[in-house]
Structure formats: structure tokens, C-alpha cells
């Protein structure tokens, strides 16, 4: 267990993110890529993700405002979004994306809309949690090698 209180706190936060299903194994992959040459790699990637995905979210939102829904387009956007989200290990967001695509494939507009709202919630929640996490991480200083959850 980390002696340093900040580090300990960081570990707890991290564990909780995994335990609660916000993050998956892919996030660990990112952590393993972090090293001295890229000490803030994970945070950089996540920041990039949020910046880029915001655009996609907006596109989807706009597409959902036009009726009738262009499911093909919606699916395409979501496919992209899913790809990004899965690369950073955003588990819940990814699950919602998959569900959304299912609705698109079956032409369920109502389902799409509902799912999208849920997705945005998860997306925002994750963002907040990660921001808090990185804040502590920066304060705690360079981390040791990431340890796998559980």
C-alpha cells in the first residue's frame, strides 16, 4: 500500500474506477505506455479523446434533431465514437455506444434517443472522475508502474 497519502488516494480512486466499471483493461494498456519520456501520457490521451469525441457527440446530437433519423449516418458516427472510447478503456461509454448501434441497426429511433441520453451521462460522469483522478495524479508526482486492477 502506498505510504504517500496522495499516492494512496490515487490508488483508491483508480481502483474504484475499475471496480465500478468505468474503465477496463485498455486503460491499463495506456498506463503501461506511460514512462519517463511521456510522464503524462494517459492524461494527454484522455484529454485528446474528450476533445475529439466532443465533436462526434455534437454531430450525433445534430443528427438526432433531424427527423426522420438517418440511421446509417448515426451508426457511422457512433462507430467512430465507439472506436475512440474503447481505445481509452471507457467501458460504460463503450457499452452504451454498442447499444446505440444496435438501435440504429434495428431502426429504433426512440431507443437511439434514450440510449444517447444515457450515453452522454456516462460520458460526462467519466470525464469528471478522470479529471479528478488526474488532478491528484499530478499532485502525487510520477507514478510507479501501473498495477493491474484486482
Amino acid at each position, binding site marked *: 500500500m502506498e505510504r504517500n497519502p496522495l499516492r494512496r488516494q490515487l490508488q483508491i480512486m483508480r481502483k474504484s474506477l475499475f471496480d465500478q466499471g468505468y474503465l477496463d483493461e485498455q486503460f491499463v*494498456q495506456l498506463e503501461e505506455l506511460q514512462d519517463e519520456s*511521456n510522464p503524462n*501520457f494517459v492524461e494527454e490521451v484522455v484529454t485528446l479523446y474528450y476533445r475529439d469525441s466532443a465533436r462526434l457527440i455534437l454531430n450525433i446530437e445534430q443528427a438526432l434533431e433531424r427527423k426522420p433519423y438517418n440511421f446509417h449516418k448515426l451508426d457511422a458516427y457512433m462507430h*467512430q465514437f465507439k472506436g*475512440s472510447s474503447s481505445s481509452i478503456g471507457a467501458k460504460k461509454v463503450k457499452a452504451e455506444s454498442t447499444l446505440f448501434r444496435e438501435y440504429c441497426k434495428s431502426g429504433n429511433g426512440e431507443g437511439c434517443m434514450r440510449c444517447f441520453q444515457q450515453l452522454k451521462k456516462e460520458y460526462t460522469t467519466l470525464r469528471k472522475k478522470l479529471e479528478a483522478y488526474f488532478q491528484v495524479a499530478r499532485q502525487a508526482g510520477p507514478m510507479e508502474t501501473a498495477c493491474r486492477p484486482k
Partner: protein
Amino acid sequence: MNSSSGKTYMSTSNSSAGWKAGDAAADQFPVGLRVLVVDDDPTCLMILEKMLRTCLYEVTKCNRAETALSMLRENKSGFDVVISDVHMPDMDGFKLLEHIGLEMDLPVIMMSADDGKHVVMKGVTHGACDYLIKPVRIEALKNIWQHVVRKRKNEWKDFEQSGSVEEGDRQLKQSEEADYSSSANEGNWKSSKRRKDDEDETDERDDTSSLKKPRVVWSVELHQQFVAAVNQLGIDKAVPKKILELMNVPGLTRENVASHLQKYRLYLRRLSGVSQHPSSLNNSFMSPQEATFGPLSSLNGLDLQTLAATGQLPAQSLVTLQAAGLGRPTGKSGIPMPLVDQRNIFSFENPKLRFGDGQQHVNNNKQMNLLHGIPTTMEPKQLAGLHHGAQSMGNMNMQVASHGSQSSQNNPLLMQMAQPQVRGQMLNDTSLGHPPRLLSPMGQPILSNGIAANVSTRNGIQENIRAPSYNPVSQTSSMLNFPMNHAPELPGNSFPLGSTPGISSLTPKVAFQEDVNSDIKGTVGFLPSYDIFNDLNQHKPQNWELQNVGMTFDASQHSNSLQGNLNHAHSVLVQQGFPSGQVNGQNRSATVVSKAMFSSGDSTGHVNAQNGNQQLNSLLVDGTVRVKSETPTNLYPDDFGQEDLMSALLKQQDAIAPAEHEFDFDGYSLDNIPV
């Protein structure tokens, strides 16, 4: 990202040089493996880059397929493996895959969040060496070097069998046989590496480096021969051994042919899949007037498709056209229908009609037409230049162009009427402005001139331009030696764009082409459409131009005089000396092809080029020069979106074409050229 890619790219080259040299760095293989990763998702791209760096590879990242292709073309041997996403906005990953496979023959790994069987299967059929599911784990990347080695090994084998036996090869081959599993085997990496070390790694390195040299480059000419052989045998019966025999190219091995055939078949399959409606080309052709004729450049894939659909346009040409023109719908639409007619050569539908029209116009516009066929993207000048090249080559399958392929894209390649006669035509037709009808394999009348120039550049662009379309050409001047003029349609033949285009349609044509070819051969040199490409790619367009010009003219000249000398064509090509590296974008393949052609042809042609018409040359030069200048600018239209090479070409054509339809070449019309 671009800037960083640039940086990375540079460092990659540096390190790769060391690796290739087979020195100490090589022993560290796969350290320093030069990877090009293409993905429009910045997050993924960043992660992949980091992962690859961690594997100690040299990474270059790219967020656009078009950029990646140009990078690859500019530096063909600058990368060892390419990793590309499937879904990208500017170009489908599979298209990129095809291009790379044809032009550079590098191993390509596809990746996607999509793990559906259908998509993965597509990867397989398009020739990907592996398929990764996102999110990609670093373990999956650690093994990618196996694909590089495997490919080298296979090439090696080919090479070896063609005569350059390397002692270590066999041994290496055998030892490496079984080790390469899919990238999923994470654990294998280390063991494989160890094994590699055990197996004369040095030998391998040496072999690898030496292997690189003898690699067979499928030049336009070579590909034309290949396609001719395939067509003669019939796509179903075309077996490598027989093709090899028919081709009768020294130094070519059965394996070379086999692997090329495989690609060709894939290509054809894909093309036939594209042609949705086999309705008469005419319909499609006519309708998209705007698309096809008008803007040369806007050889929207649609047009091409329709063209292809009609079955007239060889699948390949379609692809080419698409590639060329689709990218840019440059509004050449300015070209009025009549123009199209002129270009008729390309139009499938009224081969006769067009032919007639075209013929008349040929003098003036045909030249342009030729260009028309060529991706509109090309500047008229370029087209002209291309034409010249094509003309001289004679063998250029101007089909595309001549057919007035809808694809305004003018596959320059297609346009390239191999026949020298075409040359005259070309000149006339160089009017790039004309929609590249050429593309449409309008085997029709255009075929007459149609020297099936199978400009099969390695690049995705099916160079097989059966030039038949230049019917007009024949008309214009003496150039029309080709009996083909009347030809009927070679439509099928026109583009062997890559792999096997709709063979079915081609087959009949092939026969035709054969005839034509034989005729043409006597008279014409190969005017691979590549010229056009070359134009596009030329770093020094000026030089190229001149060369081409000389060549084309010479070719034509020679064609007349040297009936039997195909070589001229070759030589012409050689002279061109297109910097293969100069791929300004799509035409890389073209460049390569032409270059290849050169190598295959004899160099005697050079002389021819010289002789020939100084006048013409000078004329051409002027014209070409002009074209050239425009080319660079037009080379990389941003809106490629479509097939790469073709689009590039088309684009260029567009650039050129719009400029002046009655491109300078008018002055060069065959009539004016002393033969």
C-alpha cells in the same frame, strides 16, 4: 499530427537506412521496423504511435489516407509495413490497401473496432496480411514484423527462382516457414525473434537487402503483356505457367506471375462488384453528363461505376477513373456534351457515334479526349503530356480516355493510346479539357487506336489502358494506323486496373486487343498512360514533359517507321525517366510503371525519342511544359476521396483540362506533326 508525422517520418528514414544496410542495426530486427500508421481518429493514432514506439519501431503517423499514399509513393522503400484503419473519411481503408498492395507491395494490416465477419473477410480478400480489432493491444503490435519477413521471404523465393539464387535464401525460407502466426500470438514474438536470431539473421538481412533489388516491378508494359496473356488464355484458364510462357519475359518467374495474377484477380473481382448496372454504358454515360463530361476531374465514382456497369468500361478503368476523377469533381463540367461527343472515343454507348464525332474532333479534341479519359484531375496540360506519352507509347490503353469514359476522370492511362498514331491524336486530344472519356473503356471505336495499353502501373491505377478509344486519332492523321480505330470496343480491356477487373467483360476485348496490340505493336510504342502519371508525379515536370514529349513523338514517329518496334515505346518510356519516386500523389504508380516500362523496353528507344521530331518535341515540350507547370498544382487535390491513383490522375487532368481545352496541343495535332 501532420507536423509530427513529418518529423517522425524523417527520423524513420534515417533509422531505416541503417536497418536496410544490414549492419548492426539489422541484427536488432525488428527494432527499427518502419511502420506507417493511418487512422483518422486522433486518439487511436496517438495510442498506436506510442505503442509502436514502445516496440522500438520507427513510427510515422498519418490521419489521412491520401497523405499516407503520397508519403508511400514518395518514398517507396521508406516503410516496411502499413497499419490502416478501415473506416476513414477520405478514403476507404480497403481502397488504400489495394493501392498499397499494387503500387508498393508492402504488407498492410487493417484494424477496426468492427469485428464483424464480413469486414474481416473483406480484409482478407483485399489482401491485408492481418486484421486487428480495436482497441489494439500492444501485444498485437509486437508481432507485426512477421508480416514483413514473410513477404520478403516470398519475394525472395520468387526472385531466387528467377535465377538469382542466394545461398542463404533457401535455408532462411525453410527456417522461417512455420513461425509466423497471427499477431494475436503475443508470446510468439520473443520466441520468434530468438528463432530469427538463430537463423542466420545476417543472411536474412543480406538477403533481404539484396532481395529488395531484384524485386519484380510490374511496369506498365509488363502488366500489359500480362493482361494480354491472361486475356488470350481466358481469365478462367489463365494459369501462371501459361501466362509466363505467353509473356516470354526473361527473368520473370512463375511465382512473380502467380502473385501478380492473384492481385489482378482480386482487382477484377472488386471491379465487377462495382459495376452495378450492366446497362449500356451509354445510359450511364450520357446521363451523368455533368459528371462525366463536364468536369473531367469529377470523375465521380458514380460515373465510373456506371461506366463500368455498362460493362463497357473495364472494371479497372472504372476504378482508375474513379480514382482519378472522383477525387475531384472539379467542375470541369464546363465541358459541354458536344465535347463529350468529341471525346466519344470514350463513350461506350455510341461507339460509333462517338467515334465519328470523335474522329472528327479527334484532331482537335481527341487529343484532349485522350486526356479526358484520364482523370480530369489532370490539368489539360498534363493530359496532353500524358497523351503524348500515351501516344507514343501507343500501347496505352486509351480506352479509358477514348471511351470518353464517363469518368471525366480521364484516366490518362486509358487515354494513352499506345499507338503512335495516337500520338497525333494525343496531341490533338491532349485537350485535357476533354473529359477523360478515356476512362470508359469504351472499347469502342476508340479502340481503333486503342492500343491496349495496359498501363498497369503497380499503383492502384490500372494502367491498362487499352487505348482503343482513340478512334479519333486514327482519323486525324496518319497516325491512324491502327486498324483498331474502328475497333470495336475494347471496352473490356481497358483497364486492367489492378487485379483482375471484370474479366468477363474483358475477355472478349482481350481478344480484340490482342489483335490490336499486335497491330499496334508493329507500329506503336507503348504509350503507357503512365505518362500521364508521370506527369503528375514528376517532380520535375518539366523534365518529364520533355521527355515524354520526345517520347511520344518519337514513339509515334517510330511507330510509323518502325512498325515492328515496340521497343520504341519502351525506350520512350525510358527516356522519360520519370522519377518513380516522384509520385505526386496518386500517380506514383504511373511513374513506376512507366519506369518499369522503360526498363523492360530497350533503351534503344531513347534514341528514337531523340530523332524523331525535334519539332514535335519542341512542340510537345512546350505543350507539355505547360502542362507540367500546372500539374504540380493540381496534383494533390484535396478532395480525393476516391481511388487514389486514378483520382489523382483525373484530378490532374482536371487541373489541366480546364485550363485550356484546346490545349496547346492543338497545334500539335498529328496533322501538324511531321511524321
